[in-house]
Every structure is written in C-alpha cells, then in structure tokens.
C-alpha cells in the first residue's frame, strides 16, 4: 500500500479536490483505494455524500477502542472506500499528545490496512500541527497542491525546510501547481519558469476551472460529470505522472 498525503500548510489550494479526483482514478483501475478525510471540516466526506461522523469520535479510533474496519464506508465508486471526517478531529492534537510516540501514532494505526488497499489517500487539514507530523511520518508521498503565487511558494519552502529539519528523508515531496489561471501574469511566469523546490515541481498542472468548483453541488468526482473537461484531463495527467512514483513492488 502506498500512502499519498494531499497536504499544504495553506488551506483552499485544492488538497481535497486532488484527493477526491485522484482516488477515483486509482479505483477506476481496479486498485482497492481508501481515502481518509482527516479534516474536521469534512469536505471530502461531503463530496462522497458520507455523513462526517465516526462512532465514538477520533479518541476511540486512535486509542484502538474501535477497529478502523468498523468506520470504513464504501463510496459510490467501485473499489473506493472512505474513512469519514468527524468533528472531533479538531481536537486530534490533544488526543495524539497522550501517546508516548505521539508522532508515529497514525502510521501505526494504518498498518493493518496494508493488506487491504493498494492506495491510501490522506486528505489533510491545513496548518502544521501534531496531526500533520503524523501525516508526514505515515505518508510515502506528499502531494502538495500549490497556487502559483509568491506567498504560496513561501509556505512550500517552509514545509520543505520543516521536513529537512526533522530529517523526514523517507518522504517523497511532490509539489504541483494547482488552480492555475493563465490569464494571470504571475501564474504564467511561474509556470513557464518554475522555481526550484526540492526535486522540482511535477510537470502536470491543474487549471483553475469552474467544473472543479461544481464538485460542491454535484457532490461527486469530476470523472462522473465532466469527464471530457480540461480539468478532468489535467487530473488524469497528474495521476499518470504520479504512477512511476508508486513503484509496484511496494504497492
């Protein structure tokens, strides 16, 4: 199982849109795939029409009072399951602090899933917290949707610096440009001459597109209602570009 975290210190950059659309593409290929909606706001759960509720809350889950298997919900897509968000995730930092190896709790928790799924997508809340450290230690790949602006880049550098300081070398950090609006000068400049960041940006970019916004009313992935749109195509290209990073021997 490969663990792919959609993460950025900033909010509203397309993390959830990425997790939802890529996980659908993975499942369409027949890969058993799981999305964990770790954001108490529950956007991914909303898109999948699953109630943002975990019986017993995050506490019972992280204390292993409740098996993960009990809270997994099948989505309307074949091979795609979801662990929904729960409002109690807003206190997840406090829950995690109680454990001795508090940064490795998530990693430990998902171990039993390895035999059931090929891919686990973590849809993360913004910010740097104990939860995000858990994510950084549990993930194999960090997908970082980044809006092509100077400020967004700054937070990306902060993230890279943070991972370097902590010595998270296992992590493959893959930033890509998201919500790209080519009518904007700055966006164009940055895309055409991408700055050096870590191993560099993925070459796929996700355009700013009204179809993506529509996900909120359609409550489903782009593939289902706008298969031929540019945005859907961009997510497909991004998925293809990711595949070589998901080495089969370790899937």
């Amino acid at each position: 199982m490969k663990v792919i975290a959609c993460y950025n210190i900033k909010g509203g950059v397309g993390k959830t849109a990425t997790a939802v659309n890529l996980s659908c593409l993975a499942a369409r290929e027949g890969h058993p795939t799981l999305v964990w909606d770790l954001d108490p706001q529950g956007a991914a759960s909303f898109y999948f029409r699953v109630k943002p509720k975990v019986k017993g809350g995050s506490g019972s889950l992280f204390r292993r009072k409740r098996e993960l298997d009990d809270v997994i919900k099948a989505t309307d897509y074949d091979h795609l399951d979801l662990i929904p968000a729960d409002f109690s995730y807003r206190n997840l930092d406090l829950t995690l602090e109680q454990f001795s190896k508090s940064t490795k709790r998530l990693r430990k928790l998902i171990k039993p899933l390895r035999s059931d799924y090929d891919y686990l997508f973590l849809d993360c809340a913004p910010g740097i917290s104990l939860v995000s450290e858990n994510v950084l230690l549990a993930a194999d790949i960090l997908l970082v949707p980044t809006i092509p602006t100077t400020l967004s880049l700054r937070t990306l550098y902060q993230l890279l610096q943070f991972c370097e300081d902590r010595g998270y070398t296992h992590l493959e950090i893959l930033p890509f440009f998201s919500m790209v609006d080519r009518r904007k000068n700055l966006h164009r400049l940055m895309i055409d001459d991408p700055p050096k960041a870590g191993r560099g940006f993925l070459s796929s970019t996700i355009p700013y597109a009204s179809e993506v916004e529509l996900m909120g009313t359609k409550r489903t992935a782009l593939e289902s209602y706008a298969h031929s749109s540019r945005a859907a195509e961009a997510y497909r290209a991004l998925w293809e570009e990711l595949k070589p990073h998901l080495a089969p021997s370790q899937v």
Partner: protein
Amino acid sequence: MATLLTYPLPKQDSLPRWRQTLLDRLPLHADAADRYRLHFYDSFDWRLFMAGKLLEWREHNGVSELCLHDSGNDVTALTTRLDRPPPRFAADLPAGRLQRQLDKLLGVRALLPLTCVDVRSQCFRLIDEEGKTRVRLFLEQLRLAGSGGHGRILAKRLRLAPLHGYGNDAKRLTQHIEQNLALLPQAQNLLAEALSGTSKTPGDYSSGIDIPLQPEQRADAAMRRILLVLLQTMETNEAGIIDDLDTEFLHDFRVAVRRSRAALGQMKKVFPVRTLQRFRDEFAWLGSMTGPSRDLDVYLLEFSALQALLPADLRGDLEPLRDHLARHRQQEHAVLCRELQGARYRKLKQQWRRYLTSKLPQRPAAADARKPIADVAHHRTWRMYRRVLKEGNAITPESPAEEVHELRKSCKKLRYLMEFFKRLYPAREISALIKILKKLQDNLGEFQDLQVQSQAMKQFSVEMDREGRLSPQTALAMETLSDTLQDHMQRVRSEFANRFEAFGKKANRQRFERLFHPDAGAENRP
C-alpha cells in the same frame, strides 16, 4: 471485497415483471439497463479451479475488469482494470496484487479462454437522503454467448451487493427480499453450468497420475490400463504443443512418454517379448525426438535465473544467448510439430492403442501376465528400492558423475513405480514415502541439470560462433556462467552424502520395508 448474495430466479420468469415488482415493493431507484460479457479463464490443468478460484474478465463498454473470485461463495477477491482480453501469461498483466496472485497460482501455465456468458443487468439502488447509495441490487439474465445472441439461458438472478459500512441496510433489504418476495439465497456454479454440454469439465485434466487398480487384477490388464491413460495424456497435450500455448504441454507429454518407457522396462515379464521390443524402440524415438525442444524451453524459462548467477556487469552480455535459444527453439518446435503430425507417430499411436485395447490372451507367454498386479507391483518396487540403496551406498565423494546419474535414473524408475501403484497401498504412507524419495531426487536432479547446463554453455558458444553471432563479451559471459554452474554443481554434489544418509536412515528403511518387503505382512496391502 464485498460478499454477494445471489437469489436464483426461475428461468421462465419475465425480467420486466420482476423489475416492476422490485420498484413496487421496495424503495429502490433503477439505473439504466446495462450489459456486459463474462469471459472465463483457467489454465489447461485447472490450477485456478483446483485452488478454489474463478477468474473472469468482465468486458463492458465502459470499464472492463479482470476479477479473481473465491469460487462457491461469490466473494470478489481481487480486481484489476483491463481493457483488452487478458494476456496469455500472468507476468504480462498490469503489475499489482492480482497479477502477483495469478502468477503464483499459474506458474508457467498459460491462461486459456473457457467460455463466455452474456449478462443483461439492471442495477437498483437504495439511496439515502444525502443521495448516497447504500445497497445495490442487480437483476440479471445470463446467457451463453454466441449463437447470435440466442445461446442457452443459464440463469436469471437477483444479486445483492452490500457496501462496506452499510451492513444494516443490506440486512434489511435481504429480509425484505426473503420475506416479501419469498426468495432464497443460493451460491451459483456459473462456470460448471456454462460448460455443461461442452467437452470441458472443471478439473478434467491433471498432470499427476492416479489410477484406480484392483489388487487381484491381472498384471497385464492393470498395466494396459495405466499405459492407456498415459497414451491419452500424450494425445490430450498434442494440440497445446502444436499451438505453442505454453511449455507445460510438451513437458507433460514427455513425462507420459517417460512413464510409458519405465512401465515397459519394469514389466518385462508382463508383456510379450516382441511387443515390448517394438514399442520400447518407438517410445525411445519419441523421447529423443521431443528432447531438443524441451531443453530449449527450459533454458528460456530459466534464462533470467541463469543470468542472475552472473556478476551484474556481465548480465547484459548474455542477451545474445537468449536470442540464440529463442531462434533455435522456433526451429526445433517446427520440427517437433511436423513429427507430431507425421506418419511414424500416428502409426505408433494406432498400433499402441490397438494393442492396449486388444483382448487379453487366455494363455499368455509372458510369465507374470496373469499374476495379481499387487504381487508384481510389490516385487518390482522392492527390487528397485534395493537397487537404489545399493547404488547409493556405493557412491563416495570420489565416485564419478556417471554413478550419480545411474542412481538418478534408478530413483526415477522407483518413483514411477510408486506412483503407478499408489492406489494399492495405504494413501498416507505411500505419499509420505514418495516425499522422502523426492528429497533425494531433488538433489540428484539438480546435480544433473547443473552439469548439463554447464556443458550446454560450451556447446551453445560453439554454435553461436559458427553462426557468426558470438562477440568476445558474450563468450566471456557464457564461459563465466559455465564455470559458475560447475561450482554450484560441486556444492550440490557435496550435499549428496547427507541427502542419501537421510533417505537411507533406519527409520526410513523400515517404512519402505513395511510397505514393500516380500515378507511384509499382507495386512499392509489391501
């Protein structure tokens, strides 16, 4: 990953009426009608069926998938998207769990298409207030594909697909179906149903030999029976060899030939001398005629393993050998096909079958022909076992390789005898003894293979040189490989003493004696 519940419907029922009933009685939404085609696959020797698995390629004009189920309980184990029919070999499937599992189950065997079923399917959903599907129910008609869409109807059914995390909804719908519609769930054996009326039956071929014999049966009758089964095995494998489906067809064919030769060689007093002579010569020809193709198959199958024996920087230099082998295999295969379709082989089969099915002689000239098969089996097996012990005991670390090869041949004969007559002995005990023998055979076989391979490298390099296709780098790689194989051979040879000691240890000798010694109590024999 979900468990399916299948409710068979009477075949004469009208599906539109069922559709209406479902919508009237249950709070369901109907999707548009859909169709897909199921293609079933297995290897020639039913490896998936034997492992309790069912492989189907679900061809759909949207998303086509290859699914491996646990047969019987309708549980989907593994799936991968696949837009073309599956490749012949599991190794060529998209990488992933299903690919690995199939590769393990199938080994070198090819996937062969068995039959196709056309499915007309309509999905009904139980949807909650968020618009989320909680249970799916499929109303389906399954028809044998072909015949211009007028193939036999195999089944009509309702199939309930619960979704993970919505078990309660599925349970409620199940209760509705069972109480209000008076239906009962029942696992279906779709493949068997689809294959009925064809010449195929799941599990109808195995490369193993398992022939029911009566202990008091005349020895000649029993041996004819065994040899007839072996002849059938040869014939069954012919098409797969000629069509070049996978390498096991030729392998099984050759094993049947070798077993036939061993039977003739070991049963000298059961068959008339002239018959023996004639057919032994013909089977020897068949063995040597099929040899070169098989050897090349083996080199190609093991090529990567051989390559891996070399230091990494030499591995690439071995590639021209692969081409050489592949080219020669092509040629040898053509020769083999010609012979298998030729007059000599046809005549052999005809005459052999005629002899094996002819009337048993009243007063046979062969001394053992009318003896009970159990006595002959017992005697021959014991003799061969004694020979193995004697030859093995005589081998010292200094003994020449030929002596080891002689022992290998004797072991093989012993093995064949034990397998022919397995049913005459207590099943557990004979299987255990075969396993003990096999451990020794593995060592002897490996020794032989390494020696042959090491020499073959030299011979191949002569051939390649003659064909002007041998670069100095490749020559070096092959020479290195040959030396490496020699080294391995020495190691295997040095393990022989221990292996033989284990085989011949007292406890094992006693077990063989209890089963085969002439004075062994008849109570061990049924």
